[in-house]
């Protein structure tokens, strides 16, 4: 089945928030944001701004009728700054005017006096000052300390990995429309309609049932609208509430990049101990997460870093320490992978360094330590249906690794300034929200008397193809034509308390709920048919190609007739159902449990060509073997693999998020933040899906797809490192991503003894301890 929205998308008829017909009297809002990264607000002068033509009203923190608090996990984030500002881009006031231009013009004449305070941009510096969010956490397996003595080789190092801007093509957008009796409807470009509903209600000081949030589709999300669509919805709602007029707030690209959070930069230390043959005996890692100015989702993201710090490897003795560090940067937030990629990058760095010291190929260590059936993760879960080795071996065989290696080494022997490199990248990614309670999905299914079907779920369509997969699941369950099925907008009145569409889990959870809701209706219909046609075994009634069959033979009824008869006989044709996968738990006191429903595995082989004089490079190919279980829709899923891969490759190479020491975002536009474009993508991408790979824990044997493929992109870093080492074998390159062409040159020709080529100050190479907070 093709993407069900394809006809609308290609005709320009799909409606995103700002495409919706404009209600009469629609007003437009623009946000005044802090120009300094840290300080006490002395005075906000709104006089000039109020005098601008077209300005209707300006609202600040004091106009919030409810609670000025939007922190999703920890109440540490005001909607509008009150007495302090903590990052550049923090919303301080909202201007409402008759046009977006008038509102933006007025924003420019707001003057704010701030007593500036010290600005921290580096997570290690924040940690030293005790500026941490929540408590540091440690996952532990085996006995690391006593293992070092028996290792043949111990390697230590440090990694810096940058953030990543989402660049969903549709910027943050919302329209708030006041309705009767103190209620309000919001059309929001959010992955989390319930979070918007709950938070708007809190800001306005009213119960949630007075707020309806409706989401048809998003022009991309990638995590950037999981939690950070909420503030803009709250601001529009605040203005609409006071003015009792519809208000639209759409950030322009510059505002969006400036004011919203991104993927977290991390700074990490690793220590790895191995036997001479490459067997990893012990691994210790310390992750300093740059959380930005408030918690946002950082502690949850940190947790996934902990979960994925050993990637697809079994390491019998591991200690993983991670801490969220508060800095004066925009609150970093969810981004595809949710902290997992950062943890996996450091693991791969440790393996690379060990391979270089042992003088063996990196992939020898990787292969030797891949997870086997029953191996324990540092969080206590055991690998079940482990497919690390099978995907690896299949990739090596299918794509002929030894031929690739030969070709590359031959090329490198005969070329001086251009070098090729390759790397293998296995992935293992846990599927489930790590916050166990979020693993619930709902669906509401109606069958109308004409036989058409309406499905609402708690899942949001953001380009991932969720709606298409829901139709596919429904067709499979119902046995009727896809033309009869419509997937509705996601709406908080039809579905309550939905989890965000995130964690790759939406199809599993809401698709699972859809199947169950349909089964409810089907079981009523079967009972009814059995009674009417005097059939003994209702269970042996099926619907295929719209025909009602009994024991495989036609009953003479088709779907339409069945529905009409059932309606006349007063059989309910609607059902709501729910799916919460069993057996998931995690104990945060012992840091052990069974947090994931299952894992997704795969292995990629990446080849690059690097021009060592200019620093520029080309990704020649990505070959991968991926485990989708029994995919619900291959077309959609392969699209997700390619898209995720492109984002991962971009994160490791050209997407260079830069802040200066004053907390100013330097890469603040598409002109200064490089996004993968059509030439950047690999010349060749081959995707092989693992065959006969059932997954009893996913709908119809399928596996989640959204996030895991992003992590194949990590491999490109090591392919480039291979090429750099082929050019300069005696140099010891620092582990710092992204590896932009500029950084390649600095690595090849600069002083690589110190790794201080970042704008971020580097802390001393000593053990740092928090001042307070534990």
């Amino acid at each position, binding site marked *: 089945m*093709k*993407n069900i*929205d*394809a*006809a*609308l*998308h*290609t*005709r*320009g*008829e*799909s*409606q*995103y928030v*700002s*495409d919706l*017909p404009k209600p009469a009297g629609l007003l437009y809002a623009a946000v005044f944001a802090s120009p300094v990264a840290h300080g006490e607000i002395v005075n906000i002068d709104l006089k000039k701004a109020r005098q601008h033509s077209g300005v209707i009203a300006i609202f600040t923190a004091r106009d919030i009728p409810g609670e000025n608090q939007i922190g999703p996990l920890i109440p540490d984030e005001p909607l509008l700054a009150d007495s302090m500002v903590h990052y550049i881009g923090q919303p301080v006031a909202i201007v409402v005017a008759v046009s977006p231009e008038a509102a933006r013009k007025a924003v420019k004449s707001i003057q704010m006096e701030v007593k500036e305070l010290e600005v921290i941009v580096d997570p290690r510096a924040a940690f030293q000052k005790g500026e941490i969010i929540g408590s540091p956490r440690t996952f532990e397996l085996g006995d690391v300390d006593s293992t070092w003595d028996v290792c043949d080789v111990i390697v230590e190092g440090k990694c810096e990995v940058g953030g990543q801007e*989402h*660049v*969903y*093509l*549709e*910027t943050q957008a919302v329209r708030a429309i006041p309705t009767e009796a103190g209620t309000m409807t919001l059309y929001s470009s959010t992955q989390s309609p319930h979070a918007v509903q709950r938070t708007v209600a809190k800001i306005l000081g009213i119960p949630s049932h007075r707020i309806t949030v409706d989401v048809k*589709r*998003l*022009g*991309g999300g*990638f995590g950037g609208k999981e939690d950070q669509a909420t503030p803009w919805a709250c601001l529009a709602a605040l203005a609409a509430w006071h003015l009792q007029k519809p208000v639209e707030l759409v950030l*322009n*690209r*510059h505002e969006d990049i400036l004011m919203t959070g991104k993927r977290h930069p991390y700074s990490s230390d690793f220590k790895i101990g191995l036997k001479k043959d490459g067997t990893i005996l012990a691994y210790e890692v310390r992750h300093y997460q740059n959380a930005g100015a408030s918690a946002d989702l950082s502690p949850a993201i940190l947790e996934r870093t902990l979960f994925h710090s050993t990637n697809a490897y079994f390491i019998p003795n591991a200690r993983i320490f991670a801490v969220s560090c508060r800095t004066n940067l925009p609150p970093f937030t969810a981004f595809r992978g949710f902290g997992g990629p950062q943890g996996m990058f450091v693991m791969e760095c440790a393996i690379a360094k060990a391979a270089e010291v042992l003088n063996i190929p990196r992939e020898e260590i990787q292969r030797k330590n891949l997870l086997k059936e029953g191996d324990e993760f540092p969080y206590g879960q055991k690998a079940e249906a482990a497919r690390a080795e099978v995907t690896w071996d299949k990739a090596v065989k299918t794509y002929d690794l030894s031929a690739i290696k030969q070709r590359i080494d031959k090329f490198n022997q005969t070329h001086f300034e251009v070098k090729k490199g390759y790397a293998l990248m296995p992935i293992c990614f846990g599927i489930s929200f790590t916050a166990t309670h979020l693993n619930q999905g709902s669906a509401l299914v109606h069958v109308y008397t004409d036989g058409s079907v309406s499905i609402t779920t708690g899942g949001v369509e*953001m*380009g*991932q*193809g969720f709606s298409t997969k829901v139709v596919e699941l429904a067709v499979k369950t119902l046995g009727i034509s896809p033309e009869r099925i419509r997937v509705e907008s996601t709406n908080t009145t039809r579905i309550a308390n939905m989890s965000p569409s995130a964690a790759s889990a939406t199809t599993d959870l809401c698709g699972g709920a859809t199947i169950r809701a349909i089964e409810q209706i089907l079981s009523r219909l079967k009972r009814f048919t059995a009674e009417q046609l005097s059939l003994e075994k209702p269970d042996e009634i099926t619907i295929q190609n719209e025909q009602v069959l009994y024991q495989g033979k036609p009953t003479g009824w088709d779907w339409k007739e069945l529905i009409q008869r059932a309606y006349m006989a007063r059989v309910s044709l609607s059902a709501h159902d729910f799916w919460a996968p069993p057996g998931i738990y995690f104990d945060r006191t012992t840091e052990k449990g069974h947090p994931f429903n299952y894992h997704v595995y795969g292995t990629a082989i990446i080849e690059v060509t690097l021009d060592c004089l200019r620093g520029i490079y080309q990704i020649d190919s990505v070959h991968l073997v991926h485990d989708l279980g029994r995919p619900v829709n291959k*077309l*959609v899923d*392969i*699209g*997700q693999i*390619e*898209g995720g*891969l*492109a*984002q991962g490759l971009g994160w490791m190479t050209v997407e260079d998020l830069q802040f200066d020491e004053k907390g100013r975002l330097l890469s603040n*536009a*598409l*002109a200064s933040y490089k*996004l*993968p*474009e*059509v*030439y950047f*993508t690999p010349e060749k*991408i081959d995707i092989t899906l693992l065959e006969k790979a059932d997954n009893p824990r996913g709908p119809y044997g399928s596996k989640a797809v959204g996030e895991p493929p992003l992590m194949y992109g990590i491999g490109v870093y090591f392919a480039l490192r291979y090429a750099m080492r082929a050019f300069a074998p005696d140099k010891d390159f620092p582990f710092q991503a992204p590896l932009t062409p500029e950084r390649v040159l600095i690595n090849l020709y600069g002083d690589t003894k110190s790794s201080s080529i970042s704008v971020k100050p580097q802390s001393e190479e000593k053990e740092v301890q928090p001042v307070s907070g534990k």
Partner: protein
Amino acid sequence: MAISISVTVNGKTYNHEVEPRMLLVHYLRDVLRLTGTHVGCDTSGCGACTVVVNGRAVKSCTMLAAQADGAEITTIEGLASNGDLHPLQEGFREEHGLQCGFCTPGMIMTAWQILQDNPNPSEEEIRHGLEGNLCRCTGYQNIVKAIQYAAKKIG
């Protein structure tokens, strides 16, 4: 001071008074309510707003409505004829050259230009033509395939 313009969009002629500073994309979206043309970046960086003006693909966020006076414009809404999808639209559907759909109209209008210039483009020529359009979802492979599909169908 408003300026009178007369433009033909998707075969229909419109006469309007517009502010001199009004961008073509805002004219199309806000005045004509043709919202298939999207604004992704406001700075001609992403190509989501691409339309065809007098036979050339143009980023409508970098052109004034006043400059379009007298022009013939085709937007994404004007590409299908009699309800049938244009081969490019079909290609994007068949090859899954779309995910969230936000960049799709601009991609298709740029692709229209590519095929106009060269009905039988090589992959390299397709990529060269798409360089000014960004997509964050797909990784571009299927977009290139979609245009190849259309070229084959038209050719």
